[in-house]
């Protein structure tokens, strides 16, 4: 094996892992809290991409992409809030039905984007300061990918800070540990759910901006990252941001390094095999929070 190729793929692994992480953090957050998976989460990525495109229409140039990040965050969070309050809240005790109902939402959002923006997709161009690359030890490292890794680290850091240091973080941890008890002590559990869901959708919107730097913005762009994101959630373990991060890193690196030896198609298959083998060893995920709240 060629060392340069290996180094290149090692870096690409981290870059792919950052995308997986950004795409799956929101899923993992709300899955940990509410035990539900939002199948329309991929469409939050798509929404982020389209919002980035619209922002760039209004504010073209280098600053546009930076401005697009908060816009996409807020827009996707609002859409997430809408889905949570109108649909998911009603289905909170039925996780599998939530899965199916949100798939219906995903269909409608995709077709909506197709009707609004056209099936062909829109063009989001990376600004000049993101389209260069750096050569390091014989490996060309695109600045866009460095930017994405940096954003992922930043998002992760802010999230950790939020969960560990803020009041809302305290509430989230309380609800995470014992929902009934938290409700009994006067915590507005529904509001915590809502906030976290919006936050998760917002992060996905932000991920959509990152994707737009490297890929197309089309009505079905969300579908291409959502299944790896699901696998990250399966592997990450319940309600653990550390677990999700580790799982994203493992799967990103696995996928990139597998591509040295096999085609992308086969790498995709191996990714699934890897996850199924992994749960043979650790069914509770990378990190499991040990809890007394056993299921009955």
């Amino acid at each position, binding site marked *: 094996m060629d060392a340069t190729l290996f180094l290149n793929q090692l870096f690409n692994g981290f870059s792919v892992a950052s995308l997986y992480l950004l795409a799956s953090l929101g899923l993992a957050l709300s*899955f940990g809290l509410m*035990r*539900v*998976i939002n199948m329309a989460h991929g469409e939050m990525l798509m929404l982020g991409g389209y919002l980035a495109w619209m922002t760039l229409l209004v504010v073209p140039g280098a600053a546009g992409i930076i401005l697009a990040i908060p816009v996409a965050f807020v827009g996707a969070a609002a859409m997430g809030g809408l889905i949570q309050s109108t*649909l998911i809240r*009603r*289905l909170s005790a*039925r*996780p*599998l*039905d939530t*899965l*199916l*109902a949100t*798939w*219906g*939402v*995903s*269909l*409608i959002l*995709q*077709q909506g984007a*197709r*009707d609004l923006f056209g099936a062909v997709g829109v063009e989001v161009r990376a600004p000049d300061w993101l389209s260069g690359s750096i050569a390091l030890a014989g490996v060309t490292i695109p600045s866009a990918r460095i930017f994405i890794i940096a954003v992922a680290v930043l998002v992760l850091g802010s999230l950790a800070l939020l969960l560990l240091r803020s009041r809302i973080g305290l509430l989230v941890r309380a609800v995470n540990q014992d929902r009934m008890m938290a409700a009994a002590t006067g915590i507005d559990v529904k509001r915590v759910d809502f906030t976290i869901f919006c936050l998760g959708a917002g992060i996905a919107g932000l991920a959509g901006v990152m994707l737009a730097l490297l890929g197309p913005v089309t009505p079905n762009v969300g*579908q291409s990252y959502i*299944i790896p994101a*699901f*696998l990250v*959630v*399966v592997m990450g373990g319940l309600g653990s941001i550390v677990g999700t991060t580790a799982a994203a890193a493992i799967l990103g690196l696995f996928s990139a390094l597998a591509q040295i030896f096999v*085609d992308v*198609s*086969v790498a*995709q*298959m191996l*990714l*699934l095999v890897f*996850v*199924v083998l992994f*749960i*043979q060893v650790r*069914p509770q995920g990378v990190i499991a929070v040990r809890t007394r709240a056993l*299921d*009955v």
Partner: protein
Amino acid sequence: MSDPTLLQRVSKALPWLLLVLAIVAPFALSAYDLNLLARFMAMAILALGIVLIWGHGGILSLGQGVFFGIGGYAIAMHMKMADLPEGELPDFMLWSGQESLPFWWAPFASPTFAIAAILFVPVLVGSLFAWAVFHRRVGGTYFALITQALALAFATLIISRQDVTGGFNGLTDFYGIFGVGLSSPGVPAALYWLTLALLVASYCGVRLLLASRFGMLLRAARDGENRIRFLGYNPTPFKVVAFAIAAMLAGIAGALFTLHAGVVSPALIGVVPSIEMVVWVAIGGRYSLAGAIVGALLVNIARDAVSSAFPELWLYLMGLLFILVVTLLPNGLAGLVASKRA
């Protein structure tokens, strides 16, 4: 209330009337419509399996297309091999640069082997996969997500190995099955009756299974896996067996569908078709076998009617229908009718 005995009599006669209607359909329908009905009936067989695992077992599989595909490819491989002159290769292998027949293609020349493959390869794959997940007590949402990844991986693999699978094109252009031309007179009707017979047999089989202790334990495992565990039962084999039976039904459905459609391709077995299979059952009623048959027929008929006339509308309609049924009508049409009559 006017005449309950009459109503009872009608209800009793209904299934038989229905069966008679279905049996005489080949004489009433055009060749095209008969073919359409036969395809949808094949899909209804798959839907019965989803009632078994999802309605009664609480196992949501978003990957039934995989087993549908295995059944479809098995019969397609047989027909390809049967049409093949001695020593030649299927056409797609030639233009993909494949130089000799892969060892696992050769046995499909035998009809017995092909039928055994249709029945048992889905069972084998399904039970291995389900066991690997369930015996580690991973289930529920996780299982749904993993099966979806399975559907994606399976479709991707078939597409990428076109030299041995026919790739994105799938397998098509069959002349006959077991020495009979597929379009010779009488054959379409015979295949339709075969499908009908297998649908009725599957319906009866699954109904019996659900009424047996196995069905009880499956429902018990759905409502609380630990409860049956503390009665000394290991829930894993019950779930694995149910999943394997559903996989077998999907395989049969796939083989029949391929006979009627004349083609099997990855477009039928990926992520989206697999979810749509769940949609049929959600709409028909996840606890009701009859509901699942109705759901499979109705949704497919509606798609056929709506998607040509209003292609954009179809996706909105399907999405909306799904949201409404799941939130407001979890027992589907069957539940709606039952409550109307109660």
